[in-house]
Structures are given as structure tokens and as C-alpha cells.
């Protein structure tokens, strides 16, 4: 199985450690991973704003970069949602369909495909609040949203529970959106920041030292809110913890 690693634009620019952890983690499980060198973005900023035509060339570039791989893995739920469900501005050629059907978010890939049962190298001795990003939760099915009926489950929590020393805390509004929402964060800055502050407060109130998520975009927004108000909470992408980060 040839895996193409997609490192979304903002992770490339601001959070290289997340990309590195993802690559190393996959390699620990003996995956053969390539990083197509000309990759940029999945097109979500444009598509999310209704500008599908403006996203066409970016989508085409994405497909060109990744069509040759059996599976494409990315450490970002919202980008995976874009590729899988909304990469529609380009003509739907067999290559496009292949890419859309075979792009997986990292947690899904570890949980559903590799069916990982242990992370022997991982130890994280901290109290962690897990942030379910809306895209992973409701669009990719990482877990059962609180609104829906059914047996509770959570793929990211199932993975994190295999990490030695970790203590997962429960928050009051477990799947409330943190307010990032892509361009929403700049078109509605006050509501967005208020939601971010409320989210951080919920984690803090329940004793979390770290907020951990499978979406760096939510973390970028929340850490920006926390830094502005001087909240002492720390942030980590799930890939970093599963790859053995200790703090």
C-alpha cells in the first residue's frame, strides 16, 4: 500500500511538528509514506466561502499530486472532509474519484485500517481534554455526537486510552464547536473568539492541562484565544502524543 502524506497548508506553515509526527507515526507501523513535494492546499478556504470556481485549479493540483497513491492520509479532519465530500469544482474524472474515495484522516487510518492496538513508545502523563472537531465528529464519524441516539463511541479517545499515563477529562459541552469555522473566524471574529474562550474555559474548569485534537485548525484558533487572555492551557495534536511526545 503506497501512502501519500498530505500536510495541509497551515500545518506546513505553522505546525511542522504535526506533519513530522504524522509521518514518523505511520513509519513506526511500517507504512511506506511519500510526501508529494508540490502539494499546497485542499481548496477548502475557497469552497467554504461558496467560491467553487476559484477553488478549481487548487483542487486539480491536489488530485494531480495524489492520484498515484493507494491511500492519502492527512492529520486534519476538516481538510479530509473537504476532499472526500466537497471536492466537486473539478470534473469528476476517475482520478478525482479515486482521490476522494481514498483520503483518510489520520485517526481513521490508525483506528479503522491499521487497527492499532498499542503505542508502546507513547507516554503522556497529563490531564487531557479531547476536542472533537465538528468535521471529524459529524462529517467523518469519529464518534457519536451527543445529539444523536445510539451507543457512545470515540475513535480518537480509543487511541488515546492506549497511551501510558494519560488521563482524559470530560468537559461540560463535549461536542460544542470551538468557533473556528474556517473563514468564519475572520468574517465573524467576535462570535468566533467568544466561542473559543468558552471552549477553553470548559476544558480549564474540568481540569485539563492540555487540549488535544485531530484538527490543528481548531487548535490554532483556540491557542490564539488562550494566548490573548493569558489562559494557562496547552495544546497538542493527537499525532504528536501518539508518536511519543511527553509534553
Amino acid at each position, binding site marked *: 500500500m503506497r501512502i501519500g502524506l498530505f*500536510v495541509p*497548508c*497551515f*500545518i*506546513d*506553515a*505553522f*505546525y*511542522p*511538528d*504535526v*506533519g513530522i509526527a504524522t509521518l514518523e507515526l505511520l513509519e513506526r507501523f511500517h507504512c511506506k509514506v511519500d*510526501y508529494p*513535494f508540490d*502539494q499546497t492546499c485542499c481548496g477548502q*478556504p*475557497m469552497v*467554504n*466561502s*461558496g*467560491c467553487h*470556481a*476559484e477553488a*478549481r*485549479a*487548487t483542487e486539480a*493540483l491536489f488530485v494531480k499530486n495524489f492520484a498515484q497513491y493507494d491511500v492519502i492520509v492527512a492529520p486534519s479532519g476538516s481538510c479530509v472532509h473537504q476532499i472526500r465530500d466537497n471536492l466537486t469544482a473539478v470534473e469528476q474524472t476517475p482520478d478525482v474519484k479515486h482521490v476522494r474515495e481514498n483520503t483518510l484522516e489520520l485517526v481513521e487510518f490508525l483506528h479503522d485500517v491499521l487497527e492499532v492496538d498499542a503505542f508502546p513508545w507513547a507516554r503522556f502523563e497529563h490531564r487531557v481534554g479531547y476536542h472533537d472537531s465538528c468535521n471529524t465528529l*459529524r462529517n467523518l464519524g469519529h464518534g457519536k*455526537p*451527543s*445529539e*444523536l*441516539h445510539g451507543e457512545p463511541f470515540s475513535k480518537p479517545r480509543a487511541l488515546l486510552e492506549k497511551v501510558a499515563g494519560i488521563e482524559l477529562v470530560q468537559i461540560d*459541552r463535549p*461536542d460544542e464547536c470551538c468557533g*473556528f*469555522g*474556517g*473563514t*468564519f473566524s*475572520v*468574517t*465573524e*471574529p*467576535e*462570535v*468566533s*473568539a*467568544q*466561542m*473559543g*474562550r*468558552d471552549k477553553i474555559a470548559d476544558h480549564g474548569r474540568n481540569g485539563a492541562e492540555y487540549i488535544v485534537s485531530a484538527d490543528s485548525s481548531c487548535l*490554532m*484558533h483556540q*491557542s*490564539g*484565544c488562550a*494566548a*490573548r487572555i493569558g489562559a494557562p492551557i496547552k495544546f497538542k495534536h493527537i499525532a504528536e502524543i501518539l508518536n511519543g511526545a511527553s509534553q
Partner: protein
Amino acid sequence: MSGNEPNPAATLQRATPEAQPRPAKAADGKRVDHARSAKQFLNAPEHAKSHDTRVWAMRTKRDKQAHTIEEWEELRELASQIKTHTLAHLDTYLEQFEANAKANGIHVHWAADGAEHNRIVHEIFTEHGVKRVIKAKSMLMEECGFRHYMDSVGIEIVETDLGERIQQLDGEDPSHIVVPPVHKMRSDVARLFAEQLGSDPDNDDAHYLAGAQRDATRPLILDADAGMTGANFAVAETGGFVVCTNEGNADLSANVPNLHVASIGIEKLVPRVEDMGVFIRLLSRSALGSPITQYTSHFRAPKQGGEMHIVLVDNGRSKRLGMEKFWSSLKCIRCGACMNTCPVYRRSGGLSYGATYAGPLGLILNPTFDAHRYSNLPFASTLNGSCTNVCPVKINIHEQIFGWRQVLAENGHLPWTKKTALSAAGKVLASPKGYRVAIKTTNSALKHLPRWALYNRMNAWGEGREMPSPPDNGTFHDWYRRNRLKNQAKTPNEGDSQ
């Protein structure tokens, strides 16, 4: 306690309560600016916090109720299918409804839009010499601007729903479709009632305030010439309709005067009485998290010696029925669950939407009334999808919000700056080389520019957040080049990113 500590009792007694935020209304022909109104709402932190807490409590109660019913998801599916079926055969069911209603002695009228609805009702009132009307809350009548119209022709309207009466006395629109004054605090109502009804401005006990309102309104109700209600459901096989309230006020409006006029949107149809078993189980559980509304009244004929009229109103509904992506919004049973779960609605208050319908439902309904005026609204969402999950009739609300963004962008309704910025982004992100240069420039700016250059009015991100810091050792791309491609030549697109 040391002498320097504040006296807790004294801190509880604030001299002046926080004033209720009142977002500015968009002028005719202008776009509603949700972001600006939301900011005004958030600038009253006590109101904002209270709004979030109260509305979230409804969502929590809804979950509790829904999760006690094993077949909840099947009920939602069934309700959705009944609505799909009814809307697919709406012409047939409307004719059946009209024929049965007439056979029961009800007068049936048809109104193409809000103006025609108001005119028809006005004519009925004129014929009967009506001077005062008692009216139960109806979102359809809000849509039609009914109260304002009646004001203009000198007919007095008295709202019988407590929440709607509060909004009427305050000259405001409802901010929530189930709980119209949910954005107000008790202190706001105490002040309002003191001004309007002469009650004690310092007494904000809910029972006292409700009592004051009842004492003031009951004489008006007993003396009214006509009563108006909306309808939650209209049943084709009987020609009857169902009104659900928690205060029994629709029953007062319908039964006290001899003349009862009901305004009913054409999408309210269901085929059979039997279908009520599905919808009544879903409605109040989704709305307030209570098992059933206190009063679920079926009206089927005029009362003895009385007269009953029904106005069936289209007002854009048949046009929406023809919209491939958006027709299923007509399934909505107006429970408000999507508003209660919506984190944006909870933070911004309903009046910030500047429209009859607020929250996620408003984002998909309002642009069908006026695409330009409401073109900002579909962007007042994080697309988190919770609204879709709570919807009792399974409307794909967040997908329709997403769909509206595309329709609005393609029809030239995006602000010029936004369209230009996204067009530029599309060009940069489609070019590996341009993209690498852009990242380098951005990270360099974040590293080297002084704070004032980064955090100003031009940078909306920086209003409530710090920018991310650029990584010390460059991008992931740089790392990969350094660590994994040591001996390989640079690609033409790589440029000089180090």
C-alpha cells in the same frame, strides 16, 4: 472578614442593571450585517451569557427527552418521510384539505403573499366591524408583517402569548421562534412592564411579572372582537388544524370571540390525523425538552354560533418547493431545536439576524425571501452540523447553509473584498511556487513585523486572538527537504524557501 473585602451583599445589588442590547436594523435595500449586530450583543456580557446558558439548557433538556425514547431516530425518519410525501403531493393534499374544511363550515381563502394575507384578513375584520383582535403567536404572521399592517389600519392587536406580548410591548420582533424574548433578562421585563403596565420596576419575580401581564391583558381578551391563531399542522383528511401552546393562549384566542381566523402556511399540511402521533411526539421534545405541549388543540369547525376562516398562505413557499437543493427546508415544523443547539445563535442573539427567522433555520429560509438583504446570513455559521442532527424532520440544514454560500457567490452577492481575496487565494494555492513564496512572506511578516502592524482593524483574526508564531526551523516542507531529501536536487517549484 477583614475590613478591606467587599461586602458580598453589596456586590449583588448593582445600581443599574446592564441595558438590553438592541442591534441596529439594516435599512431597506441594505445587507443585514450579522457580525456587527452580534458584536453589539456580545458587548452586553451579562445578557450574552444568560442567553447562551438559557438556550443551551433547552438543548440539554431536548437531549434528555430524545434519549429516553428508543425509537427516536426512527421517529425522525418517519416524520421526514411523511413530510417528503406530503410536499411531493402538496396540490392534492391542499385541495383535499380545502374541500373538507369547507364541508365543516369553515371559510377558506388563499393568499399568494404576505400583502394578500393581510388584505384578506383586513376585509374579514371590516365586514365584522372588528376593532380589537386577540392573537396567538404565529411566525407566519410575523413573515407577513401582520401586526404592523393592522397598526396602520387602526385595528388593535393584542398578543396573548406572554413572550410575544413582551416583545409587542417593547416594539421588538421575536428573537426566537418558540421563546420570543429569550434574549431579555428578568430585569429588562420588569423595567418594560413598569413603563407599559405600571408594575413595580424593582420586582423581577417571574410569577409577579406574569401576573401583572395577566391582570392587564385579560380584560382586553374578554372584550375582543376576533381571535387569530396560526397552526402547527393542518390535516388534509379532516380539514382541521392543530395548534400547540404551553399557555393555552391559542385556545383563548380561538374560543373567546365568535370570529376565529387562522393563518396557515401551505407547508403545514399532513395527510392524516394519525400522522399527528409522530409529530406531536417530536415537536415539544425537540423544542423545549418537554414531553408534550401543555395544550395541543384540534380545531375542526366553527364554534356554535361562531364563524371560522382559514387563510392558506404561500408567500414564497411554492417557489422554494421548486428549488432542488433547498425545497426540503419546507419540512420544518418550527420547533427551534436548530437554534438551541447553534453555538452562533446562542452567542449572537436572534435579533442580530435581522429577519423573521433566526439561527440555522433562518440562514436557509431568509435568502429565499430576499437573497441580497440576507446574503451575509449563510456565512453566520461554522458549519458544525449539530443543527442537522437535532432536526426532528431531518432537514440537512448545514448542507443547505453550505449550498446557499455557493448560490450567493455565483449570483454576485459576495462583498467585493471577499470575492477578490478568495480569487487571489485560489491562484496562489494552485501554484506550488507561489504558495511557497506566500508562506515564506507570511512567516517572515509574523516573525519580524511590529505588533501594531499585525494587530489592527485590518486583521480580524487579531481582534480576539494572537496569531500563530512561525516555527523556528521553517516549514514542514523545509524539514522534509533537510531530513529526507538530502541528496536530491531541488525541484523547479521549490524556489528558495530556506
